């Protein structure tokens, strides 16, 4: 991690903090405007606040991936409006796919101020190394990082336990104190993957926090094992969700 990169991340965080008072209410307004509801919202926020209290960081939030705004919905579900403004430093950093927003300058600025580090799937190795270095720097500073271990939206609509990305394993390998929060999110009307959930969608979220077991192997094999632990957990959560799915309610 070079000093300029560290400086840029701190600058990004500072600018995000300064504008959070304006952007966070707009973000919450967007969620209301779309009519999105999260079941047991207060309980989820209390759970996450409790987990953060018990372990300050680093945290890796690993979600299943079905729509382009999964991270937005998950962060909305985890942190209240007040938390977005007062606790900006504890908000997760995101790694969105660059191609999804790069054409729109407004979105580029919005993502920058919302603690996003753009990544290019299948991009060149130097860029990947730079992204890894940024993430490592953030984890060293006990920050919260949100990633999608599947690497892309699941084409089958189910957690893909075969074709996941190993990058997450690399984060964990370098930060043995990093806790993982698996978040399984699903809208009632969500069957397969898509861009945006429909208006008025009600989401159910289940969470499971754990400290990954240290694998016996080394290198890439260990990374595969670590990310495998997360993906299998997400798949188990999906099974549980399918069996215990509740009727839509209110937040």
């Amino acid at each position: 991690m070079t000093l300029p990169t560290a400086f840029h991340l701190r600058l990004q965080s500072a600018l995000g903090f300064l504008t959070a008072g304006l952007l966070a209410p707009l973000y919450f307004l967007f969620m209301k405007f779309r009519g999105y509801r999260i079941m047991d919202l207060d309980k989820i926020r209390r759970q996450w606040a409790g987990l953060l209290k018990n372990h300050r960081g680093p945290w890796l939030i690993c979600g299943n991936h079905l729509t382009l705004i999964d991270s937005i919905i998950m962060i909305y579900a985890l942190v209240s409006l007040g938390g977005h403004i007062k606790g900006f430093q504890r908000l997760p950093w995101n790694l969105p796919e660059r191609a999804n927003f790069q054409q729109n300058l407004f979105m580029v600025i919005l993502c920058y101020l919302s603690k996003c580090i753009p990544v290019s799937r299948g991009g060149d190795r130097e860029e990947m190394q730079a992204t890894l270095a940024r993430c490592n720097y953030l984890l060293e500073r006990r920050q919260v990082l949100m990633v999608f271990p599947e690497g892309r939206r699941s084409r089958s609509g189910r957690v893909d336990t075969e074709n996941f990305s190993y990058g997450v394993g690399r984060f964990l390998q370098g930060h043995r104190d990093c806790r993982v929060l698996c978040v399984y999110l699903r809208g009632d009307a969500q069957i397969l993957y898509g861009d945006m959930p429909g208006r008025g969608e009600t989401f159910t979220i289940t969470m499971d926090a754990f400290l990954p077991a240290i694998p016996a192997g080394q290198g890439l094999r260990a990374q595969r094992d670590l990310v495998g632990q997360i993906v299998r957990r997400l798949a188990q959560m999906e099974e549980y969700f399918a069996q215990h799915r509740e009727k839509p309610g209110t937040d």
Partner: protein
Amino acid sequence: MIEILRLYTKDKTHLDRATMTTHILDDLKVNSARLLDVIIKCEDIFGIIIEDDEADKILTIGDAVELIKKKL
């Protein structure tokens, strides 16, 4: 190497005309997660350890072959 790649390449016809300069991700359409599976398979078959930095430099079949030769 071709036989290892055959396990992870969807369209096997690409492998029939593969050369040392064939790009594993772009030409064979092996995704980056599967490329790491290829590298782990190489570790198993050739009894070598490939470090992260070395794995990151493998782009073509030639890169993989050269690295394996160096490690043997």
